[in-house]
Structures are given as structure tokens and as C-alpha cells.
């Protein structure tokens, strides 16, 4: 349809937008409606605090400047912890993946422990991390690093090890050493996989940061600690708005990593034009 008149092109784009945006909007509207039904008809005035009607959540959580400021400050703090931990996990994970790709014995020695870190419930590690590293920023970052490490290691390692044999032949023919092979072949080849790992880890990092905040109560409070405070105060309306911000943070990290990844590899993955 690319050669059609401008108006029909606009119409087809509009139709595309409607097709993508309309269905989730309908679901949202149904959910909001259900909230009203449960809040007014099922719970009634006595127990309405369990699920306040949506406009109450908006009024208390988003329009009240004190609450809003409290939540956004906490969100900023959580973001800092999540990104710090994710960054460290990225550096460490890439380093481990490189070492594992260079020597089979490193992979054999360390891979089982990477799996164990991943399969151990993060909540079980948290108390120990607190005892060893305090209950402050550092401990929260360590929890995030632990939870975000594994996807980065496995995806990067996969990218490093799946270079086609004929590419290696070219490097062998010209007597390229290990370092040249790593930097000119294996690492660039692994870039798309690294971003896949980072995207998964980004979501996990936000979870790790919030979980850490439930336990580590020193220093500035993050959104996780606010959630715990609201729970104790039975402020369901604020719980819901804080939950909204947590979701948004997870989405934002996921989307940003995806965007950077697409930008970085766009040129060499684009479809044939000629």
C-alpha cells in the first residue's frame, strides 16, 4: 500500500495504532469497572479499605502532592539501587562469560555455582547478605547483582560460543591470536545475546531492589519499604499507586535496554534494501 495516496497511508497507520492500543484499553476499562463493582457492591462501606474505588486511588496516590513526592523519591532511590546492581552484574557477568568461553575448565568449575545462585530463592540469601554487608545501600546492590547475574552470564556465553566455524577459519588462516579473536569476532558476535540477557536481568534487578528493601531498613527508603509501611497502615489506595510505580520502573528498564540494544545492532540486522 506504500504507493497509495497520503490519506490512505495515514488511515492505514491509524488503523494499526487502533489495533495495537484498543484491545488493552478495553481490558483496562473492564478491570476498572470490576474494581468499582467489587469496591461498592461486594465489599460495601465497612470493608471498602480492602479495595478502594479507582478514583480514590488516583486522588490519594497521584494527586496528593505529599504522597506523590514520597513515592517518587522512593522510586528514585529504588531505581538507583536497581541500575547500580544491574551495572555490576553486567560487568561481572560479561567477565565470567569471557573467562568461561576461553577455558573449558573455568566453565566446568563455575557454571554449577552460577546455576545454584539462580535457583536459590533470593529471599533465602537476603538475611545472610544483611549480616555480612550491613543493611544499607551496599547490601541492596549486592542482592540485585546476585539476582541479575545469571541471565547475563548464560546469554553472553551462548553468544561467544556460537560463532560459525567458517568465521573461525578466517581468523585461523591469518594466525589471529586469542585476544584478536575475542575482540574482533566473539564479543561483537555476542552483542545481541548480551542485550537479551540484559533485558531479562533488568526486570529481575527491579524485583531484587524491591525485595531487598523489605529487609534492609537503613538509609533512604525505597519503594519496597514504602509498600511495607502502607501494608502496616492498611493504606490500600497508596499500596496500589506504589505498585503502579514499581510496574512502571520494571517496564522502563526493560524498554530502555531493548531500545539501546536495537539501536546498537540495527544497522547490521536490518532487512535487505538493495
Amino acid at each position: 500500500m506504500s504507493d497509495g495516496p497520503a490519506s490512505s497511508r495515514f488511515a492505514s497507520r491509524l488503523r494499526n495504532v487502533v489495533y495495537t492500543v484498543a484491545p488493552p484499553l478495553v481490558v483496562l476499562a473492564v478491570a476498572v469497572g470490576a474494581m468499582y463493582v467489587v469496591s461498592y457492591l461486594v465489599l460495601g462501606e465497612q470493608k471498602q479499605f480492602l479495595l478502594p474505588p479507582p478514583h480514590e486511588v488516583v486522588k490519594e496516590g497521584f494527586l496528593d502532592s505529599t504522597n506523590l513526592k514520597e513515592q517518587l523519591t522512593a522510586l528514585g532511590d529504588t531505581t538507583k539501587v536497581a541500575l547500580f546492581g544491574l551495572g555490576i552484574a553486567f560487568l561481572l557477568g560479561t567477565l565470567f562469560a569471557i573467562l568461561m568461553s576461553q577455558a573449558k575448565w573455568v566453565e566446568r568449575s563455575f557454571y554449577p555455582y552460577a546455576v545454584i545462585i539462580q535457583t536459590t530463592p533470593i529471599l533465602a540469601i537476603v538475611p545472610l547478605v544483611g549480616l555480612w554487608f550491613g543493611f544499607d545501600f551496599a547490601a541492596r546492590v549486592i542482592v540485585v547483582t546476585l539476582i541479575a547475574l545469571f541471565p547475563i552470564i548464560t546469554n553472553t556465553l551462548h553468544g561467544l560460543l556460537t560463532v560459525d566455524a567458517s568465521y573461525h577459519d578466517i581468523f585461523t588462516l591469518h594466525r589471529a591470536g586469542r585476544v584478536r579473536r575475542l575482540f574482533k569476532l566473539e564479543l561483537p558476535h555476542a552483542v545481541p545475546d548480551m542485550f537479551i540477557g540484559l533485558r531479562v536481568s533488568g526486570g529481575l534487578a527491579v524485583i531484587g531492589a524491591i525485595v531487598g528493601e523489605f529487609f534492609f531498613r537503613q538509609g533512604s527508603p525505597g519503594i519496597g519499604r514504602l509498600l511495607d509501611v502502607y501494608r502496616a497502615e492498611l493504606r490500600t489506595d497508596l499500596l496500589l499507586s506504589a505498585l503502579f510505580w514499581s510496574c512502571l520502573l520494571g517496564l522502563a528498564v526493560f524498554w530502555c535496554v531493548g531500545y539501546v540494544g536495537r539501536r546498537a545492532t540495527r544497522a547490521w540486522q536490518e532487512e535487505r534494501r538493495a
Partner: protein
Amino acid sequence: MALPAAKRAPDPGGPMSTVGTEPRQPVLGFHEACKTFPDGTEAVRDVSFGVGKGEFVSVVGPSGCGKSTLLRLAAQLTPLTGGSIERSLDNIGYVFQDPTLLPWRTVRRNIELLGELTGLAKQERQSLAQDAIRLVGLDGFENHYPAALSGGMKMRVSLARGLTLRPKLFLLDEPFGALDEITRSGLNDELTRLFAAEQFAAVFITHSITEAVFLSSRVLVMSARPGRIIGQFDVPVPFPRRPEFRFEREFSQIAEQVSNALREGYG
């Protein structure tokens, strides 16, 4: 059928034997070369032939007959299990069945790769790459990524990359096998022109008789696995070959002989 024998002991740099019908100095010599893979597959048995300086030798044979293995042996990408191979020089070009371009590098940077791997200074490898780009007619495509190129263009880049270091021995492993007929004969015209201009020695693997006769000064015919050389045909026509050569009487006569030899190899 006289096959030029090569000296057993490798003697790099020293004078090499020039035996058999080939009066020119051999650049590459196979002597009763054998290759059996660890899984027991016998790919190549007792293969002997020489490639002289400035000679274009094609190897045709049924698929799976060990033609590619022959090239991998010559390039020392895989070890021999019997016999010997001598090579009088180190500077070889290699073109694979796939273009094997690095997708994250532009055409220019792909062609510069070999200069980087051999540790040439930046300026030198850039000017070599520029020469290769011009030689193969890629001007205007330097900054394209491989993903934006057609199959024929990718192969052209692969040829240019193989030529950057000005190899004296060029090994081509069925480079045009995956291309359509029109693109393939276009690139054959290009290759015969490059051969005449650059004067390298070449070993060209193919399963197309037309391609082999058109490009080569000599065509070797291989049997089904284990691959042995069962026929050898000279194509005494000057280079560069004109596209019309494909429709001349001499061409079809040689092609018929090669075809007959191939058929015998199946029997």
C-alpha cells in the same frame, strides 16, 4: 595421465621441483595426500597434483567427494592423515562457500579485516582495502552493511576481502554455488578478469562443468568418495576469457570430455 610429483620434504623458500607436464614453478604440490576423518570417513585418497605459478586449476566432482577437504588441507585448516603437501608461499587468499562477512562491519571494514589480523598499519590496510574495493567494482557500497546487500554483492565483497593482501595463491571453495545462473556467470566474467590482472595461482572448487572450463587453465576431475583425481584436462585458451567463449566449439568439446570423465567416476 601425467601428474606432477612434488618433493616429499617441505622446503619453504628453497627451489621446488618442476616435474611432469607443467613447466612452471609449482606454488602448491599435493603428493599422495590422504585424509580420513576421526569418525572413519575417508574423504581424500592418494591425491597428487601441482599448481604452477599463475595457473588456474579447477576441481570438479560429485557432491561430497572431498573437494572442499582438498582446499582445507591446502590451507592447513585440517591436518593430513597421509602423504604430504608443499606450499611455496604463505600469502594465500581463501574464499568460502558462504560470504562469511562480519555482519557488524561495513563493506569497507570487512575488507580491512585481514589487514587488521595480520597486523598491518592502519594506513596501509586502508589503502589495500581501497584498492580491493576498486578492483572488484564495489565503489559506492563501502559504507553498506552486509545485511543490505544481495547474495551476489556479498560474494563480491568476499572476493575483495580475499584479494586484499594480494595473495599469490587463491583458494576458492565453490564460491558461487548458491547464486543464480545470471549472477554466477557475471561473477565468472569478473573473476577471469581479476585472474588475468592479478596473476595469482588459483584452485577453484565447483560442481559446475561450465564454470570450471570457462575459468581454468586446467580442470581436474574427482571421483566419488573417497575422492581421487581421475582425469585432467587442459584448456589452452588465453586469459582473460571472453564471455562468448562459453558458446565456442572448443569450449563444448572440453566440457564434453570433462562430463564423460565425471560419468566414469560415478561408475
